[in-house]
């Protein structure tokens, strides 16, 4: 059937051409499947997003009452609200610190797991483990470990002479708590991606560097990091998006408190929509938050263009 015309020196692209299904076009079944897929995507993914935008222009007393069209009122209210700007800033602090530590720790773990260590498989499993745990499991376990007076960390810190640490009472400590928990939970994503990337760095580069007298740190800085730059670009982008949108860990550990000191945009949107029943306001905050994220992603792509393959 399809035989791609192979151009000398273009063997690779020739192969991928031959998988393109020109000859299979016009097949009824496949078109039916395609449109089914299209319809489902539209209903489940696109429609809710557009509906969120529609809700942001409305005001309703509850989820089922008749909404009233209010134009840009919600947007004006949100943007004039200092709570919103504070929440945005706290979200940036939260995501920023969490990402920096996740990346540094993830790279360190990956380097360790790549080294000649005993029980490699077990260690790799243990290092990935936190990522699989439900946020709720982690949050409840952390709360139990910080229990006053009998949590294992509480007692440990006391024995080290720190006294009772009031994690939920101080704005700074509460922020440290949610950031640390996020780092513990989601670092393995960086570890696994970086570890996979390490396997593709040719050994010859390291050997050449060694001949030139480069030490381990120099080899890491001048070979490993530059070689893994594309991996890191994607990993940082994904982690940034997900940390900025993260809701559950903060909600479960501090509920946004104390005195809203850990309340970022997702928590604020939840509080407005599901506790104050101001649906329009919740939708508006989510929409603005998504717009800010989109702009940030576009800027990121400009600064760190990805190598696009297909």
């Amino acid at each position, binding site marked *: 059937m399809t035989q791609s015309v192979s151009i000398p020196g273009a063997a690779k692209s020739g192969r991928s051409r031959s998988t393109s299904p020109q000859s*299979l076009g016009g097949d009824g079944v496949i078109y039916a499947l*395609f449109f089914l897929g299209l319809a489902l995507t539209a209903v489940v993914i696109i429609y*809710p997003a557009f*509906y969120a935008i529609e809700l942001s222009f409305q005001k309703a007393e509850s989820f089922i009452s008749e909404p009233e069209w209010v134009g840009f009122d919600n947007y004006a209210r949100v943007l004039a609200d200092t709570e919103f700007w504070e929440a945005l800033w706290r979200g940036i602090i939260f995501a920023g610190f969490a990402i920096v530590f996740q990346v540094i720790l993830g790279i360190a773990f990956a380097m360790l797991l790549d080294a000649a260590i005993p029980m490699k498989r077990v260690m790799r499993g243990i290092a990935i483990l936190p990522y699989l745990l439900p946020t709720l499991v982690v949050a409840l376990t952390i709360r139990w470990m910080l229990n006053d007076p009998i949590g294992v960390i509480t*007692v440990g810190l006391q024995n080290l002479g720190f006294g009772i640490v009031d994690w939920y009472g101080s704005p700074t400590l509460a922020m440290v708590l949610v950031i640390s928990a996020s780092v513990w939970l989601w670092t393995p994503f960086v570890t696994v991606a970086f570890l996979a990337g390490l396997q593709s760095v040719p050994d010859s580069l390291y050997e050449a560097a060694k001949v030139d007298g480069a030490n381990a740190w120099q080899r890491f800085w001048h070979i490993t990091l530059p070689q893994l730059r594309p991996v890191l670009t994607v990993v940082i982008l994904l982690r940034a998006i*997900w940390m900025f949108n993260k809701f559950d860990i903060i909600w479960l550990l501090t509920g946004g408190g104390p005195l809203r000191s850990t309340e970022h945009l997702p928590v604020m949107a939840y509080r407005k929509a599901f506790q104050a029943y101001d649906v329009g306001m919740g939708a508006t905050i*989510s929409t603005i938050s998504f717009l800010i994220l989109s702009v940030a992603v576009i800027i990121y792509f400009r600064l760190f263009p990805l190598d696009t393959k*297909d």
Partner: protein
Amino acid sequence: MRNELEVSLSSRLALYTAMLVTFVYCFFPVYWMLVTSVREPKVLYNTVSLIPGPFSLENYRLLLAATDYPTWFANSVFVATVTVLITLVFSVLIAYSVTRLRMRGKTAIIGTMLLAYMFPPLLVAIPLYTIFAQLGLANTHLALIISHCTITLPLGVWLLWGFFKQQPIDVEEAAMVDGCSRLAAFFRVVLPLSLPGITTVAIFSFLLSWTDYTFALVMIDSDSQKTLPVGLETMVGQYELRDGELMAGTSLIALPLLALFIFLNRYFIHGLAAGAIKR
């Protein structure tokens, strides 16, 4: 690091120390959860001994006998199973047709799926809940399953798209030349070849649905409909001194995942390395 012969004693020591620290850092919370769950309730508030014991299954007994935990467990299994099935059927359909079809706009589907990765959970949860509330479907498992599909479907399409794209179309064509219909070729040739990809999608859809807290918090109100994470959360603060039972509860949520992880390790690594799971 690369040249093991060169590694001196001191750097070997540093390596082992780093290993130990990493091990304790990553594993201790899980260890502590398990140790607490099997400790006798009476001594729970008197000791922080790092060594397990005195051993007792009382926490588990109380959890299963005195709370709605069994119901929540059944709800979680049901929601996760249906989510996985729906995700598999539709992500296979979409990914397969997108890779085998030449027409404008097909990359828009993939693009939309990627965009969905960027949606804040509440950007999806608020409109979905509004829709379900108006349809009278709020507080149902159907609502929860559909909201889980908004995350698992993009994941499935994205992963399988990569899979189907790599697959040589020649085998499929050969089968069709030999008289197979497209559907037969699909079921006899494409599906078996894609089994690893499909398994990965099944595992991660299960994981996402099983671990979800946010959507369950928004969609489900009544105790009898709750899934494990939200159900367990409502136990907190309802009664005093139930940390032992809570840790038994979290252990039972985590153990199925640990079992999956141990037996299906390579799929996890594959899916994670593909950047697939949004968490």
